[in-house]
């Protein structure tokens, strides 16, 4: 048949397709073209003086939660509290006393970065996040 092929139920089909495109476009519309780089990580004076973290920066970026998990296991289960880093430095395996000693600006350092990636560690239910006040 040589009849031109019409679209049946055009209104309904197009509504559906527009809905489909709008849902897909949500991330594009939501951010409205604003670039959103990760927040700057502000280092404290103490951290700056130390120059480097307990492990190389790239490793810390992706593995710091793993390190903390290993520390926790080591301290709580085996009672071993000394961590020897790959550059042969010794650290006390402690969330509040080691990490937050250098990174005492938790809100500006850990939290900002976590908010960006939407991670919300529950560690602070128990661990104190301002060790200085404690001392």
């Amino acid at each position, binding site marked *: 048949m040589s009849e031109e092929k019409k679209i049946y139920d055009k209104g309904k089909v197009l509504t559906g397709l527009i809905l489909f495109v709008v849902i897909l476009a949500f991330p594009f519309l939501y951010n409205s073209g604003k670039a959103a780089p990760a927040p700057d990580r502000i280092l404290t004076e103490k951290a700056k003086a130390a120059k480097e973290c307990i492990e190389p920066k790239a490793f810390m970026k992706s593995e710091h939660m793993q390190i903390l998990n290993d520390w926790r296991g080591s301290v709580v289960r085996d009672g071993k509290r000394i961590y020897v880093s790959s550059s042969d430095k010794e650290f006390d395996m402690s969330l509040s006393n080691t990490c937050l000693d250098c990174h005492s600006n938790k809100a500006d350092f850990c939290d900002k970065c976590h908010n960006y990636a*939407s991670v919300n560690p529950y560690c602070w239910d128990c661990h104190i996040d301002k060790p200085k006040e404690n001392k």
Partner: protein
Amino acid sequence: MNVKYMFSLIAVIVLFLLAYVGVEAAGLQILFGIVIPYVALLVFVIGFINRVIGWARSPVPFRIPSTCGQQKSLPWIKSEELDNPHTTMGVIARMFLEIVFFRSLFRNTKATLSDGPKISFNLEKWLWLGALAFHWSFLTVIVRHLRFFAEPVPFWVQLLEKVDGFFQIGVPGIFISGIVLLAAVFYLFLRRVIIPQVNYISLSQDFFPLFLIFGIAFSGILMRHFAKVDVTGAKELAMGLVSFHPIIPPGIGVIFYVHIFFVSVLLAYFPFSKLMHLGGIFMSPTRNLPGNTRAVRHINPWNYPVHTHTYEEYEEEFRGKMIEAGLPVEKE
């Protein structure tokens, strides 16, 4: 060994190697992290719309009542409002329940022949359960992934993360949906291998999406819990894509590129595959039309008015010849 699934499995392994070698050895981060995802998204959207418009061009002249209940007829005969709706509202309700709870899969039965010979139909709920687990966890994972594509992250995404990470097992904590997704695709795969009848009708294009989605879920879980990647960098890349300021943060980790390459392939493959049932469910005449053939006259749109040639017209046309041939005619 079965050619059909080996073919699909090998295809997915080749895709993995492409991304792995492409990023690790050839340094093609821009290709795998920016170009391919954009192209895949375009193919997905345009291909999807094209398929749906194609379906919308096919006329559906009649109601196709593949229904599971009494159609609305006389007022004193009870009709089945959900299984054989005769109003638009009823159709919407049926469609909604179909999409959200897969009611038609719930009806799945298994026929067994026992001595007698006697045939019996047993309820078979595993497919329904597996399909529900699969689709719901897939949706949950996708919604949770919005944390990479939105800044600030909307509260409902964080709420879903809280619920999904309820068990707080490990650091970072496991997400139930990720594991259910992996388990469900694996079940759907096993089903196609183990049940002989299902195996017989399974083609490589049934296995390919299963392997691909398995690969996506597997690589995702791998980078969350085992082969760590720089998640902050991953978000920067994703945000770059959706804000049209694409960037490649250095050192994300190759598994991430494998993950998004798999996703890109899935998107680009989608419009050409059976996965189009996502759009197709809405376009199914057996589901989206009210069963109202007793109440409404449906006219075939492509050959109306119907061309008839009645006997009177026929005799009118051939009367002379009929008389010549000695055939009886009604009017002289």
